[in-house]
């Protein structure tokens, strides 16, 4: 992996002609529609950006066992111009978030930061033009060659168990999770207890049960009883995605791999997705 520094790019005023130099230009009237969803996957410094004509996919990984992806479709952006089929780069996500929130990032109604995000291609920095109340901030963030995201080989044909829950029902348990427990155990079954979250901490064992006919359960498709354990430290960051979302789908496949998919509505009510993939800690029969 090599670090490339930008050539001295002149800070010219933005005009359509200047866009010739960029392979990717994405604009938002409200930068929060990007920064909020990125916060849901910020648990590591680096993020892999992959842009296609369909939109933006941002990936963050942890120790080859956890992957979080945020999807922002092209339609969410006020402008989304891409000159290649696939544009990929890697940036420091905490730096990017500090830049996106340069004007404070508070949600004052009626006030928002406008964003224009530009990328010149391999070797160029990610350039952000942010404007609020007539004040303009220009950020140039150095980019790196993107790592290849891990393919967890999670496909729908291999899914053994699936539930879709309203996020409301999971928010409290997730925020209360016993952090002294090294694992979060998820049991899914066509019979009792149907869907159960368990922790084993210093103060004892805790179980959260969700019956299949609960109001909160929008979909229940469990074919086989499965109990899997996942490292708490890996799953805890997903709480941020849960907090933003209104619905979550929980799926496990025959290997015990976990897929969490979150439906997130942004400030303008548009839908984006965040997903987490996690490897099981150990097989529990």
């Amino acid at each position, binding site marked *: 992996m090599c670090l490339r520094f930008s050539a001295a790019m002149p*800070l010219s005023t933005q005009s359509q002609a200047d866009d010739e130099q960029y392979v990717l230009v994405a604009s938002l009237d409200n930068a929060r529609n990007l920064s909020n969803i990125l916060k849901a996957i910020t648990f590591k410094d680096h993020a892999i950006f992959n842009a296609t004509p369909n939109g933006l996919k941002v990936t963050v990984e942890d120790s080859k066992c956890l992957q979080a992806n945020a999807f922002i479709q092209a339609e969410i952006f006020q402008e989304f111009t891409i000159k290649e089929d696939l544009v990929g780069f890697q940036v*420091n996500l*905490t*730096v990017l978030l*500090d*830049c996106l*929130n*340069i*004007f*404070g990032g508070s949600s004052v109604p009626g006030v928002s930061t406008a964003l224009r995000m530009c990328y010149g291609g391999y070797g160029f920095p990610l350039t952000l033009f942010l404007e*609020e*109340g*007539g*004040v*303009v*901030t*220009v*950020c*140039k*963030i*150095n980019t790196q060659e993107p790592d290849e995201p891990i393919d967890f080989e999670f496909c729908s044909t291999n899914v053994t168990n699936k539930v879709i829950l309203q996020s409301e029902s999971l928010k409290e348990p997730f925020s209360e999770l016993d952090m002294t427990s090294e694992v979060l155990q998820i049991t899914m079954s066509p019979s009792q207890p149907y869907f159960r979250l368990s922790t084993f901490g210093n103060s004892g064992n805790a179980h959260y049960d969700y019956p299949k006919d609960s109001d909160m359960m929008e979909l229940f498709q469990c074919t086989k009883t499965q109990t899997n354990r996942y490292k708490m430290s890996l799953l805890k960051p997903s709480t941020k995605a849960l907090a933003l979302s209104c619905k979550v789908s929980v799926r496990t496949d025959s290997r015990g791999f976990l897929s969490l998919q979150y439906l997130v509505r942004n400030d303008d009510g548009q839908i984006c997705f965040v997903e987490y993939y996690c490897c099981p800690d150990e097989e529990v029969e």
Partner: protein
Amino acid sequence: MKFRGKIVDVACLNHFTRVVTTISKLTKTCVLRLTPDNLFFVLSGKVANGGVGMWCELSQANFFDEYQMEGVSPEDNEILLEVTPENLSRALKTVQNAKAVKVKLTKKHCPCLTIAAELPTLSSVSRVVTHDVPVDIVPRRLWHEFKEPIMPDFDVSVYLPPLKTMKSVVDRMKNLSNFLVIEANLNGQMNLKIETDLVSVTTHFKDLGNPPWGDDAASPSRESEAMAEARVDVRRLQQFLVGQQVNPSRAMCNIVHQGVVHLILLHEDVSLQYFIPAVA
């Protein structure tokens, strides 16, 4: 040496408390200089403070209903005390409800500024609250360190942008870099810039206006577009912005190119000057 003052107006008490609280956010200790007409909170720009200087001037008549002082001698009719403004602020905050607050220089086990107030209670008997805030008397031979700073020969003077916006930007920049460049020109433009290996960020403020110090103040031949700049420790600037609780009537910034950033805030009855030295 004698000093006794009394504040009876609740608005004056509030305001005075706010000023002391602002000072407490700017520095841990400073010198309180009492003269017949004014109070000054002073930080001399010594290396120990990172070269940062502060001069806050209050007209005593705007705050105190009664004010009597007798300085070290008739020729040197002043009192200089080294204080920890946070202790003063904390004491003042507890007496905001009082009908009258007395401030007196006393000698307990050590010299103190004693804050005394009668607080109303539900019964007919008032509650008396006394705070003894320890101070150090600054000897006459050191007084020269706490004189009013001379206005530096600045290259550019510009009005500051809204402090709230400036604070948001500086807060984020502090996450990204230890040093920040402030630059401004006579065209009312100011930029805040940081640059590291990872990222460069520039915030552009325009149409700020330049204070009319007088035609001969800044060099007359200076091109209006030319920027004067100073690279400063970002924490110093952030500290200054964190302290501001009330919007000033005038906020200005004078820059000596690669020398010093001189910030001036004017409120109705308080003026605050803050000097941040430029670093290489």
